[in-house]
């Protein structure tokens, strides 16, 4: 310190009185008489409530009873959950086959966890979702009969996306394979449509078939939410872009759709999908009820997501659009490379908020008789042997929902930090 250059000011250490646990407590909990009193009162209240809850949920709880009557007059009857948890988790799925929905849930959760990692956000994502979805539905249905036309559609879509996205970047060989894929898909679909190609199906049938009306519990909730949001997200982006379009017809259609969907409750849309849609279909054709509910969720979520994303689009300064224009980028390039990456970053918190809302809103499908997780929990209460313990069951269901929603909330936080890395000053 003695040979400090002339003119350099001595660096002072910060005042130390608020460091350490005691210092922190003094500063934050007991800084004044009023503050101290509030702290004490709240602490007493917390301890009292916690004590009451633990007494009920743990110390006097019954974990082992074999009927509801053995539980009477005691604390929480967790024996009910022990007895019913397989029904709550898997619904009416054949009992001895419960390993199938269990592994389906594991497959879907792995798929979600893997795609949460930013390093996977490229072609890997397609592979993860392709494999994950295949495993999930093979386990749930037991048998998959994939029609030829689906393969052709996939070839056309993959080829088309490859051609559009990799244009001018990919080498000639890669580009030719996209062209070949697209051509095979297109020609094949035309031939299939005019009846030259047969109605061939790829049948994979290692397990017994279980129809969707027997599905229930957690897999149903996760499938409805995952695929609902996975399809609603790109759909919502298209709606949001369409709403800002200069083409009056496109804009009008998008605004009309968004306002119409936002103007009605999800329940009414579900009832329409379940009751009214079959009336309009030609007799003999049926669309699976589960699929109808899934489509209703996608349409509904799409409209809400579109409005969230529109907020992000509007938050971008006009200069970003102008700079992209001035460089000669065309509309798809401008949108995909400049506008969406920035707009989506801005809306991560409200977007995840919407996702969380829809994860819980899927429970409304109980209105049309689909047994999602909340509905199976509800049904577990019907058993007369175990009548009278709704609190335990709903608390358990709430806990499971909380685990999922809180994970999403934490992920939102992580994503915000991760994506804004380096871009902050």
């Amino acid at each position, binding site marked *: 310190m003695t040979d400090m250059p002339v003119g350099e000011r001595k660096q002072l250490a910060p005042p130390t009185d608020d460091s350490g646990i005691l210092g922190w407590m003094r500063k934050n909990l007991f800084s004044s008489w009023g503050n101290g009193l509030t702290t004490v009162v709240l602490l007493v209240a917390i301890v009292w409530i916690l004590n009451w809850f633990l007494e009920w949920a743990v110390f006097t709880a019954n974990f082992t009873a074999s009927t509801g009557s053995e539980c009477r007059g005691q604390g929480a009857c967790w024996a009910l959950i022990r007895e019913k948890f397989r029904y709550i988790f898997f619904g009416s799925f054949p009992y001895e086959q419960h390993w199938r929905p269990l592994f389906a849930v594991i497959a879907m959760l792995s798929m979600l966890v893997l795609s949460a990692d930013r390093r996977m956000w490229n072609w890997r994502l397609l592979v993860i979702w392709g494999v994950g979805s295949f495993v999930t539905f093979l386990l749930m249905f037991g048998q998959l009969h994939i029609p030829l036309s689906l393969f052709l559609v996939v070839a056309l879509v993959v080829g088309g996306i490859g051609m559009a996205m990799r244009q001018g970047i990919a080498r000639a060989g890669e580009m030719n394979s996209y062209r070949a894929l697209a051509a095979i898909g297109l020609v094949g679909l035309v031939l299939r449509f005019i009846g030259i190609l047969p109605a061939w199906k790829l049948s994979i049938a290692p397990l017994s078939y279980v129809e969707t009306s027997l599905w229930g519990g957690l897999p149903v909730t996760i499938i409805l939410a995952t695929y609902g949001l996975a399809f609603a997200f790109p759909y919502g982006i298209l709606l949001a872009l369409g709403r800002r379009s200069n083409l009056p017809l496109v804009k009008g259609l998008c605004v009309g759709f968004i306002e119409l969907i936002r103007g009605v409750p999800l329940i009414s849309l579900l009832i329409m999908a379940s009751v009214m849609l079959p009336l309009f279909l030609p007799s003999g054709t049926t669309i699976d009820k589960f699929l109808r509910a899934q489509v209703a969720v996608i349409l509904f979520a799409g409209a809400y997501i579109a409005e969230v994303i529109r907020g992000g689009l509007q938050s971008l*300064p006009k*200069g970003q659009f102008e700079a992209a224009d*001035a460089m*000669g980028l065309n509309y798809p390039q401008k949108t995909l*490379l400049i506008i969406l990456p920035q707009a989506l970053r801005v809306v991560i918190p409200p977007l995840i908020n919407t996702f969380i809302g829809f994860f819980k809103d899927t429970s409304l499908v109980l209105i049309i008789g689909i047994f999602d997780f909340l509905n199976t929990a509800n049904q577990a209460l019907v058993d007369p042997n175990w009548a009278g313990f709704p609190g335990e069951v709903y608390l358990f269901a709430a806990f499971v929902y909380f685990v999922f929603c809180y994970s999403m909330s934490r992920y939102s936080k992580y994503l915000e930090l991760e994506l804004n890395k*380096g*871009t902050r000053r």
Partner: protein
Amino acid sequence: MAATARDLSNVASVIQLKGVNKWFGQFHVLTDINLDVREGEKIVVCGPSGSGKSTLIRCINRLEEHQQGDIVVHGVTLSNDVKNIEAIRREVGMVFQSFNLFPHLTILENLTLAPIWVKKMPKKEAEEIAMALLNRVRIPEQALKYPGQLSGGQQQRVAIARALCMRPKIMLFDEPTSALDPEMVKEVLDVMIELAREGMTMICVTHEMGFARAVADRVIFMDRGEIVEQNEPEEFFANPRNERTKLFLGQILHH
């Protein structure tokens, strides 16, 4: 140093505006603009705020649409044909007052984006060109940072390099130093002067009269949507003819 009285009359003109008119709603923002810019010519456009200077140069690359008259850039006439617009934008680089770098991309990615996607240039080649340009604007060490980590002057130099990456034939500058802190103006002007010396065709909307004296072949004064007066810089500053020009110069050169 001073603008040379180069004879540009034999050089081909690269931008032609003929009878250009534009309205914002009822407001007549450009009135009968006629302008011929020759290859290699450096033009400084000045005038009070709201006089239509920015709108004028923004019409040249179709960031604004003109309603009457013809604009021909490099032989291509601007119309609603997207192909024409994109062809012109490939030839014309633009630098904005507020830099408009893409904050989610690194400096290098900002520079290579258009060459890769618009010119379909291989990534490696685009990066080599980008690094050479970053060297030229004297900030190669910032290549992997994000725009938010750079000072205003550095950001504007990156913006100039980004426009140059497309190897444009014409550069438009829309008040490039107006949003900068005073101590950063010089570093940006130095880059622009260098560029001018290399023979780039430039149109600059700016109030930097020192810059106009140093490099401009012609100074254009605009007021209320009209070109009021234009002349070589020596003559323009020494003997302004129009009353409005005298008033304006009096206001900005009073020190």
